[in-house]
């Protein structure tokens, strides 16, 4: 019976680990949702923050976050699609493939604070752009390029060779094949990756806090080269005064909004991925 005892013990350990994890993770979510829900109302969402963010709302922080990630989307999407096309259509040499994979996975693994430092040195100081919306968007764009490249490459390489060959057989040149056959499929993968990337980018604090955001007094940036204010850095400011109940309340509210934005992006990515049809089934 010793074996049976061991078996039950093992199963009990697995069950308790799973229960523990569920408890921890649902604690996290419920804390944010319950505390955040108390704060969120139209007034909170539509007014600007006062007194270090402890009073007022988060209207311009939301606008700032949207500006940052839309800038990132515009910059990263074309570059990433180009890279994915190159990987799937031009690079046939396995060594080159391996090198490009290493570069992309490497870029994906770089800690976010390093991107912040890179932006601070290269853009803010070396190119002297100042702390600005534009630099923040560039850095976030660099961060999400790998996600988009991998996702679009995956959907491009899933197109059966037959489709390419029949297109060539009709006398289409390479560029025509790319735009008519490869891209329509690749775009969906790219959009999936884009949403996943943006979900990650919208919550990033370390890369933007030195290079793109200002503390207060920022409304809409007048140009590309002015600072914005963003949700994550706002939460950072509020978290540093966590004993001020009003500030903490606002921090929960801002967190809930941030998480909702993150969930919307993630879920749309999942949705697109599920509804994505391979070219052969259209």
């Amino acid at each position, binding site marked *: 019976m010793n074996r049976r005892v061991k078996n039950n013990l093992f199963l009990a350990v697995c069950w308790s*680990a799973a229960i523990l994890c569920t408890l921890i993770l649902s604690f996290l979510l419920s804390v944010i949702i319950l505390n955040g829900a108390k704060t969120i109302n139209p007034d909170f969402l539509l007014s600007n923050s006062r007194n270090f963010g402890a009073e007022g709302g988060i209207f311009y922080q939301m606008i700032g976050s949207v500006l940052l990630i839309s800038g990132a989307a515009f910059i990263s999407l074309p570059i990433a699609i180009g890279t994915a096309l190159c990987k799937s259509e031009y690079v046939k040499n396995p060594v080159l493939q391996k090198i490009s994979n290493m570069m992309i996975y490497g870029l994906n693994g770089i800690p976010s604070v390093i991107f912040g430092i890179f932006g601070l040195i290269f853009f803010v100081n070396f190119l002297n752009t100042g702390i600005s919306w534009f630099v923040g968007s560039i850095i976030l764009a660099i961060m999400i390029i790998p996600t988009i490249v991998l996702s679009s490459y995956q959907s491009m390489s899933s197109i059966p060779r037959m489709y390419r060959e029949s297109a060539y057989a009709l006398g289409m040149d390479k560029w025509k094949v790319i735009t008519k056959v490869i891209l329509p499929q690749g775009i969906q993968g790219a959009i999936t990756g884009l949403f996943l990337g943006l979900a990650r980018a919208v*919550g*990033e604090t370390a890369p933007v806090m030195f290079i793109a955001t200002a503390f207060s007094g920022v409304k809409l940036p007048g140009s590309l080269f002015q600072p914005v204010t963003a949700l994550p850095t706002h939460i950072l400011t509020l978290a540093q005064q966590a004993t001020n109940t009003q500030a903490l309340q606002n921090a929960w509210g801002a967190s809930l909004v941030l998480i909702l934005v993150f969930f919307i992006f993630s879920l749309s990515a999942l949705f697109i991925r599920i509804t994505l049809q391979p070219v052969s089934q259209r």
Partner: protein
Amino acid sequence: MSAYISKVGKGYIIISTLISMIIILLILGVLFLSSYDAIHGGGWRLFTLTWNPPNNQFGILPMLYGSLVVTVISLVIAVPLGIFTAIFTSEILHPKYRIYVKSFLELLAGIPSIIYGLIGVAFFSVWVGELFHLQSGRTIFTAAVLLSIMILPTIITLCDDAIHHVPQKYREVAKGLGLYKHEVIITSVLPIAKTDIIGAVLLALGRALGETMAVMLVIGSIDKIPTPIYNLLAPGQTITSKLGREIAESAFSSIHFSAMVFMGMILLIIVLALTFIAQQFLKSGQRLYE
């Protein structure tokens, strides 16, 4: 006309590929150039115990120690918990629910770290302080616990994939020989999933090392190795928290700044090495959620 467009298109593809390939080299190059002053001026003096910029002392050992200890402890907590939970989701839980659990975990894996930081300041540091009767709950241990919770979803979902990908036939053969469930899992499933699990742990290790915001808010930010050296309930400092707090304070092109960048470069090199090694282990690769 068509040939012209084709040329432009090819140019676009090549340029964008070059951009995305060169960025990582550019980052490495920029960091190296900026840390050159510190390496040149400091040399081995960088690896000492005292960090005091006004006196030109830039010892990074306390930060290296902090990063190492925080990461190791968080893995010690998260890896067993994560693997057992992954065994639960892939082997014990009814397959019907697995997809929901997986989606939930993958969503959790992406929650922004600043929110973990907020929860850490508002709850964990207070709890740790009260639990151990400390003056302040901002300790290495608090940071490690918070970090372990952050990497838990990543570990669970990657290990679950690894275990799930073990072909069903191994389980059936082992069962057919009269093995109990725990023997089936321990002796036949886990050894086959081993390499993927190692890859998952390495990826989680990389993520934990590079985590900034959550750690920065709860670790206490003292540039000292605690006494005695194994006292985890003392404040400390990691490379990332040091960078997050101090990089904007140091003047550009000073030795101080250069020493900070040097730390960043060490961190980057370690994390890149881990990523490449992990990629060798994870043959299935190409996951989007890490």
